[in-house]
């Protein structure tokens, strides 16, 4: 149990910024539903953490990593579309998670449980968030090029398989650190909605990326603040706030 709200908020800034950044690649690749579906793969891992009394985030990361390895392998070895593999994996893991997890924890995993996390977890997810940001920025050129022009990037000798794996890994880590804030069901509020909003408002790439990160931070910190003062779930508040910002962006676009 953690009482220090400013610590939560600080960690929220890092996690949201990482989500906003990774979200831009999902928008570029039109893979927006992938992250949503992939997040459920973390459930059995979180459940194992709850049952066997270790950090649920570690279980979540382990399962997400296993999930992306599986998706990546199947995508490379067969001709199945990545979306359909994820679809099968997601319902299966959701069912397993729901089967083995106690009901209270299940709800927390679905909608977020930031007030019930430990200081260790807060620190861990902040470090992971910063790592995600650093790595994503380091590889931003090849990640963007493979996303928008696969032929050109192949001609530049950029490995599509490696970039695909890097992106999946970044998504997995981002999901795993976002779950404690907004839960498995609402993770796209951090990954997809800010990036979609930013795209509506941007005419160049730099603005798109920076704005997406800022919007994710505003949504999450706003959501956390609302939930701190009123009895509203932080995940729910974050989703509604980010959806509201997205709606406003639609007017600007026209």
């Amino acid at each position, binding site marked *: 149990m953690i009482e220090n709200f400013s610590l939560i908020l600080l960690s929220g800034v890092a996690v949201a910024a990482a989500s906003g950044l990774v979200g831009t690649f999902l928008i*570029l690749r039109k893979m927006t539903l992938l992250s949503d579906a992939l997040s459920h793969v973390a459930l059995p891992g979180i459940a194992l953490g709850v049952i066997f009394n270790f950090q649920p985030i570690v279980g979540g990361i382990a399962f997400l990593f296993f999930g992306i390895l599986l998706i990546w392998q199947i995508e490379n070895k067969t001709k199945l579309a990545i979306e359909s593999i994820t679809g099968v994996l997601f319902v299966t893991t959701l069912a397993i998670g729901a089967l083995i997890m106690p009901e209270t924890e299940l709800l927390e995993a679905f909608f977020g449980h930031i007030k019930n996390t430990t200081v260790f977890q807060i620190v861990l997810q902040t470090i992971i968030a910063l790592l995600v940001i650093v790595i994503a920025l380091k590889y931003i*050129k090849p990640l*963007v*090029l493979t996303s*928008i*022009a696969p*032929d*050109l990037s*192949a*001609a*530049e*000798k950029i490995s599509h398989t490696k970039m695909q794996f890097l992106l999946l890994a970044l998504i997995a880590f981002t999901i795993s650190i976002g779950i404690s804030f907004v839960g498995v069901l609402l993770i796209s509020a951090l990954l997809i909605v800010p990036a979609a909003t*930013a*795209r509506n408002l*941007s*005419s*160049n*790439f*730099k*603005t*798109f990326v920076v704005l997406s990160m800022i919007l994710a931070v505003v949504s999450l910190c706003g959501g956390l603040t609302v939930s701190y003062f009123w009895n509203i779930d932080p995940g729910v508040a974050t989703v509604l706030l980010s959806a509201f910002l997205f709606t406003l962006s639609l007017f600007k676009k026209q």
Partner: protein
Amino acid sequence: MTDEPLLKVNDLTVVLDGEKILDDISFEIKKEEVLAVIGPNGSGKTVLLKTLIGLIKPTKGIIEWAPNTEIGYLPQRFQVDRYLPMTVKEFLRLKFDPKKSISAVFREVGLKNELLDESIAHLSSGQLQKVLFAWALINKPGILLFDEPTENIDVVGQESIYKLLHHLQDTLNISLIIVSHDLHVVYRYANRVLCLNKKMLCYGEPHTALTDKILAELYGDHAFFHHHHYDK
């Protein structure tokens, strides 16, 4: 022009998924030469280009580039998402290891600098094609491999692209391999032509290599219309 070939291809065969796409292709290209590759849809033209730049592994045969040859490749399909928030300048900055400034290549392809801050999604297909040329030229290539788009380019745009290619060849002394569907282009710009229909049907100077028999074999009767229509 030296006699040392820039590229030598010997007995190149490519099999993909059990199907023979290229069968025993041999040709060479010297510095500053223009080679046109023609053939019907599905004849292996795009696969040939991709094999030359190393995207596809040859099943058999040898591809030999002269040492330190920098290759510029313009793929056939390059469509930009209408909602991609990226300026032309930002796009060109994605290129690795640039050897020329963006404004220098922009001048070479005849685009105005104001276009650099335009959104790449708002360009006309002709402008986008020129941006792609600029992309290829940033690395100072000794040869350009141009896979002509089959769609989305209007006739006027196409004409200006070939004028540009000709201009680039004159000013930068680069070689070209053009995959084309237009015989007019072949007669007007190419020193040599390679006719492809999985096998190599002809290879040589356009006026001698492209006999009526070869054209009929490549395109059926339809080709004669093109031939006479353009070659006035």
